């Protein structure tokens, strides 16, 4: 018996060389007939012509044996399929309008699905670049824990193979072409080994690297290595200045490695450290733990060990030193990374799924009309012996081919969609930078295309194959009209489309209103014409307060001197994230059991003027509010209301709670501003002059992190060069990383909402395009079928207007069921959206009404053209038309249905 490979090879050869083989068979058969004839002539003594005739009769049709031959070769089904495909291509090419409409519908829906799949795959599905990533755990919800807990886990936990830790920091890295500020982290030397990360170059950290007094070492991310050294391996062993200290580069991480960095193209830099329970200042040190579960250990076992360690910590430390709500919990890194992205992606997935169904309904409807127009052809084929299965398969091949073409067009658009997504995706979307059209994405596109083709094709095809009866042939060549069953199905499909569109419109509307209500939130300060510069000033360079103050003073002076700069201020935080810094305070002359918390800003004197924050009472900070002058503060309205509701706050005194700092006298009251993003309201807060900041609190900025706020009519493009020069003329080594308008910074803060609203808006628009085609097709078809009836009605006195309204009313009835269903579904499901909404309820009546109004207009517009045609019916023509005439009319209009 021939080996399997030989047989496969033979089949391929048979398939590829079909022509040659047929020729072979041909000559073999002819030889047979020839020899038979000669034999007959010889043995029976008859003339050779007669013998040949008999031989041929005995042989039968040569063609039949060629078929038998192919069947025997076992390639029949492939050839049939190829034949079906060729036939389908021909059929599709003969109706370009239909084909184009179907492919456009499908490419929109399939493209959206493929694009979203690639996002989901990148963000949620792709394995993290670690060894056995499912065993890598970190903290759930809140990443930071006291270093002591990590040390305790390292000592005693059995659930872990290894517990490493890190904390992110920003570093000033010197080097060509300009000093840069980079996201990096201090990592325990075993962190890379724990993650199973390899170095592309050089070596991993060793414990000695973190020992006190050891030479300073650093590992670069692959991206940074490429940027700084252009991929030169001489980087290993060379020195770069990190926060102004020379560090030896010992390693370059593998290209795919990231330490939970959200975007792959972000450069990173890592410095070794040893976990110590306290900071040099004697306060609790906090770190982010990252551990690998021991073989066979479960997350639950690790968790119960954490519970023990945490409760011991809680009992040995006073309340004020730590604060976490409930219980410290472990989670796998993966689940933690995707937690925030998941709900939104789920909504988007459902939305594109709905789009796909819409497109399916659309194409199914087009196919219903198309196949019923081809019933005669189908019947002829059936009469010639094509089996029902064969007919069904042939029609399905046509729809799958359509879907695959649509999918391909969708794939072609993917590149553009990806760049749009990258531009739109909110900052911090995990791993979105890795977005690519790779093999899994391609396979997904192919599989959904084929699946879609079968889904929308199977109903029309089975209907068409069922009606393939001989009766049709007897109808004297007239194309039959669709069965009422087919009409009902196509109307149901349209109603379902309307329902899906209404749901999408409502969801898109809710998200759009969320975005709108966020942007309409007045932050309480001016955002137009304000440029911000975030800076990290290396501690190593400016170790003492006077040096730092002098640096800031000179920078402010230089910036103020830039032409067109109206005012400039310094602050510890952007105004929109003022809530990042909070402090407890006590009010002079009051004893309260627990101190209250307020957000505070450390600002220079022109802060209120630069941001246009009105002072309601008192004065702004002035040049005289220096460190040696009496302590002053400006409080905001909320704090005035909370602390001195019925008194004049000016002249009152308060101070930070946990220090013996000086008392601060209130000199002014400022209008409230939003300090924790646009979605939360103002909270009480106060400001102090930056020269009077308490220097014993390291985290009390303006320490080494500061923001410059520059008010100028010129934009970022005009100013950034001058702003850099203003800073570099004070210190050439100071990185100036992020220059942006305040408006852009705030817009980035509502990036997720904008992303969701934009995507859903795009999906809803696609849905409308699809539903318009769907409604139009069905109404046009029905109008055409009823032309005769309209003619009679007009002959009996109905006006064009009557006909128009009757068609519109029919269309409205068709859509109404869909609208009702859609609204019900949307109202039922929209509460799952609550987490994504702001300033709008999930059942917002305005949104629902808007969606209903929009779909009504869309329905009316889609019905209008066919309705107008119905109204133009000439009664005489319509009535005379019968039989053949009606048939021709039907075909004419059916062509219209196709495109």
């Amino acid at each position: 018996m021939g080996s399997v490979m030989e047989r496969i090879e033979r089949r391929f050869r048979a398939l590829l060389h079909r022509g040659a083989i047929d020729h072979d068979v041909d000559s073999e058969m002819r030889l047979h007939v020839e020899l038979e004839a000669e034999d007959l002539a010889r043995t029976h003594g008859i003339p050779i012509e007669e013998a040949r005739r008999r031989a041929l009769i005995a042989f039968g049709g040569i063609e039949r044996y060629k078929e038998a031959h192919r069947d025997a070769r076992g390639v029949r089904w492939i050839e049939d399929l190829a034949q079906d495909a060729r036939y389908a291509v021909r059929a599709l090419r003969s109706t370009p309008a239909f084909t184009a409409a179907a492919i456009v519908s499908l490419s929109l829906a399939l493209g959206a699905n493929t694009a979203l799949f690639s996002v989901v795959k990148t963000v949620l599905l792709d394995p993290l670049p670690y060894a056995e990533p499912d065993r890598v755990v970190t903290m759930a919800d809140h990443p930071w824990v006291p270093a002591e807990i990590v040390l305790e886990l390292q000592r005693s936990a059995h659930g872990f193979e290894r517990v490493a830790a890190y904390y992110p920091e920003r570093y000033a890295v010197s080097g060509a072409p300009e000093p840069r500020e980079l996201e990096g982290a201090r990592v325990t030397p075993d962190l890379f080994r724990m993650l199973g990360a390899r170095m592309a170059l050089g070596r991993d950290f060793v414990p000695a690297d973190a020992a006190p007094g050891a030479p300073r070492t650093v590992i670069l991310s692959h991206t940074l290595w490429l940027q700084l050294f252009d991929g030169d391996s001489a980087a290993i062993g060379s020195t770069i200045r990190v926060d102004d200290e020379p560090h030896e580069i010992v390693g370059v991480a593998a290209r795919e490695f990231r330490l939970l960095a959200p975007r792959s193209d972000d450069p990173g830099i890592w410095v070794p450290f040893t976990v110590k329970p306290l900071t040099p200042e004697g306060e609790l040190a906090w770190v982010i733990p990252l551990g690998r579960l021991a073989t066979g250990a479960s997350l639950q076992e690790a968790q119960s060990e954490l519970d023990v360690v945490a409760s011991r910590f809680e009992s040995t430390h006073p309340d004020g030193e730590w604060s976490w709500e409930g219980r410290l919990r472990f989670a796998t890194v993966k689940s933690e990374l995707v937690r925030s992205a998941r709900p939104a992606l789920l909504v988007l997935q459902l939305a594109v799924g709905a789009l796909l169904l819409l497109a399916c309904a659309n194409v199914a409807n087009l196919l219903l009309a198309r196949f019923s127009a081809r019933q005669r052809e189908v019947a002829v084929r059936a009469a010639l012996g094509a089996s029902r299965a064969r007919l069904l398969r042939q029609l399905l091949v046509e729809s799958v081919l359509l879907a695959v073409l649509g999918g391909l067009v969708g794939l072609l658009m993917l590149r553009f969609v990806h760049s749009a997504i990258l531009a739109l995706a909110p900052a911090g979307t995990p791993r979105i930078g890795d977005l690519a059209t790779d093999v899994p994405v391609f396979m997904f596109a192919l599989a959904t295309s084929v699946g879609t083709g079968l889904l929308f094709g199977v109903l029309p095809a089975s209907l068409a194959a069922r009606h393939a009866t001989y009766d049709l042939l007897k109808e004297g060549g007239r194309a039959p009209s669709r069965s009422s069953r087919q009409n009902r199905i196509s109307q149901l499909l349209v109603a379902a489309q309307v329902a899906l569109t209404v749901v999408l419109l409502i969801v898109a509307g809710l998200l759009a209103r969320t975005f709108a209500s966020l942007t309409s939130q007045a932050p309480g300060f001016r955002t137009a014409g304000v440029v911000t510069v975030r800076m990290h000033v290396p501690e190593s360079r400016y170790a003492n307060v006077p040096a730092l103050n002098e640096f800031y003073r000179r920078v402010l002076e230089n910036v103020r001197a830039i032409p067109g700069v109206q005012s400039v201020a310094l602050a510890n935080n952007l105004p929109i994230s003022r809530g990042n810094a909070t402090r407890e305070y006590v009010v002079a002359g009051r004893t309260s059991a627990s101190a209250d918390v307020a957000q505070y800003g450390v600002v220079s004197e022109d802060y209120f003027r630069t941001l246009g924050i009105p002072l309601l009472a008192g004065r702004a900070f002035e040049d005289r509010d220096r460190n040696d002058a009496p302590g002053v503060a400006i409080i905001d309205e909320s704090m005035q209301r909370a602390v001195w509701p019925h008194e004049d706050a000016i002249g009152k005194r308060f101070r930070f709670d946990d220090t013996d700092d000086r008392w601060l006298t209130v000199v002014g009251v400022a209008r409230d501003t939003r300090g924790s993003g646009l979605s939360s309201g103002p909270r009480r807060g106060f400001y102090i002059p930056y020269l009077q900041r308490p220097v014993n609190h390291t985290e009390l900025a303006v320490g080494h992190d500061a923001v410059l706020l520059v008010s100028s009519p010129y934009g970022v493009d005009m100013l950034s060069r001058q702003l850099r020069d203003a800073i570099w003329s004070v210190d050439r080594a100071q990185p100036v990383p992020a220059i942006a308008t305040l408006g852009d910074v705030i817009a980035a803060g509502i990036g997720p909402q904008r992303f969701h609203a934009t995507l859903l808006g795009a999906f809803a628009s696609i849905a409308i395009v699809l539903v318009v085609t769907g409604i139009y097709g069905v109404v046009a078809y029905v109008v055409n079928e009823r032309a005769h009836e309209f003619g009679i009605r007009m002959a009996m006195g109905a006006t064009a207007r009557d006909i128009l309204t009757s068609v519109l009313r029919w269309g409205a009835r068709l859509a109404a069921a869909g609208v009702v269903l859609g609204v019900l579904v949307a109202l039922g499901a929209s509460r799952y959206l609550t987490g994504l909404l702001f300033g709008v309820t999930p059942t917002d009546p305005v949104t629902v009404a808007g969606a209903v109004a929009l779909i009504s207009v869309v329905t009316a517009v889609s019905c209008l053209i066919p309705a107008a045609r119905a109204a133009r019916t000439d009664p005489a023509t319509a009535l005379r038309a019968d039989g053949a005439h009606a048939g021709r009319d039907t075909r004419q209009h059916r062509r219209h249905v196709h495109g």
Partner: protein
Amino acid sequence: MDDRADLLQGTLDLLILKTLILGPLHGWGISKRLRELSSDVFDVGQGSLYPALYRLEDKGWIRSEWGVSPEGRRAKFYTLTAAGKKRFAAERSQWRLFAGAVERVLEAT
């Protein structure tokens, strides 16, 4: 063909293999030899012969090659392969077992 025996299903393969045991033959030669060997009892219709040949070839029991026939014509010659010889032996013993059993049943009194 009417007064001749219809071939039992499956025996055609065996008979074709048998004709080829004696050496390569082209299609017509096979049918002629079958006719001769069976004294004109088996006149295999070409409609059965050729599909059977292709099937056997597909299974790897015979192979084919174009050559020149004794009549001086280009013809496709079929040759038994090693697998085909084994197959023939197996089918032959199968057939003898079957035929013997049928014979015994019919001879029983």
